[in-house]
């Protein structure tokens, strides 16, 4: 009689374990393990009203310009002539439909941003996107 009552008092752990496993799977799936190919030192300027950067075309070339004016793609520095060769090849390969995203540091001078814009326009890529910070981590 007493044994049966003790068995009935046991907490059913199955739903809790289910929930915990769901949470772990969620965190594992959302965790970004691969290192980003962007320079984390670049401080973007703020733009609260710009359209959100999402569903980026896989063909997009992200060009970074550091505060000191160094042009980088995937953390690798490029001189304007090297960039011209690369962008020219990309433009020809994808029939001049290559979206260009410029991640310029907020304190970079326009003359350095201009080098990238001139190279892109020179190879026939007129449309350029500037990346900016819409919402910081602390604001979420």
């Amino acid at each position, binding site marked *: 009689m007493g044994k049966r009552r003790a068995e009935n008092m046991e907490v059913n752990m199955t739903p809790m374990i289910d929930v915990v496993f769901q949470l772990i799977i969620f965190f594992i799936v959302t965790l970004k393990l691969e290192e980003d190919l962007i320079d984390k030192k670049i401080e973007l300027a703020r*733009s609260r009203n710009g359209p959100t950067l999402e569903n980026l075309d896989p063909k997009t070339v992200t060009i970074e310009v550091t505060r000191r004016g160094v042009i980088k793609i995937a953390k690798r520095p490029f001189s304007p002539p090297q960039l011209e060769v690369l962008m020219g090849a990309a433009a020809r390969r994808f029939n001049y439909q290559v979206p260009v995203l410029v991640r310029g540091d907020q304190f970079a001078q*326009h003359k350095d941003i201009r080098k990238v*814009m001139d190279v892109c326009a020179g190879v026939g890529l007129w449309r350029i996107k500037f990346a900016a910070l819409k919402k910081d981590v602390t604001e979420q």
Partner: protein
Amino acid sequence: MARKRKREQIEAQLEMTPMIDVVFQLLVFFVLTIKPEPIFAQLDVSRPAPDPDAQKEDPPDDMINITVFKGNRIVLANTVVSFETLESKLAQLAQYSTTQTVLIKCMGDSEHRTLISVLDICAKVQLKNLSVFSLGATTGSRGG
């Protein structure tokens, strides 16, 4: 005999406590290490050809002309304006048409964040046709 069977059943039960401990450890680890990604904005502009001959032509009169100088100085139609004034003026102009072209001329020594601020204001008032020119002989001829 019946009592013996009952004891075997109890002994066959799975011990859940260590597994729950490990699972909680993992959960706490992921909760502490996860970092939300910032949200980025994209500001679309067009860049006219860097051909000096094409730039000699004066832009049409109905274009909105904005010039960006060093030190967050902005000139709208030959008048130095603050960001607030620029926003109100552009909002007024955008009431007529949001498809009119905005010509943003940037000096070579101006900071990139000033250009982004101007583009942000244009995005706020829904002006979409934005062209960015560069001024100042820093790297060859005038670009844009």
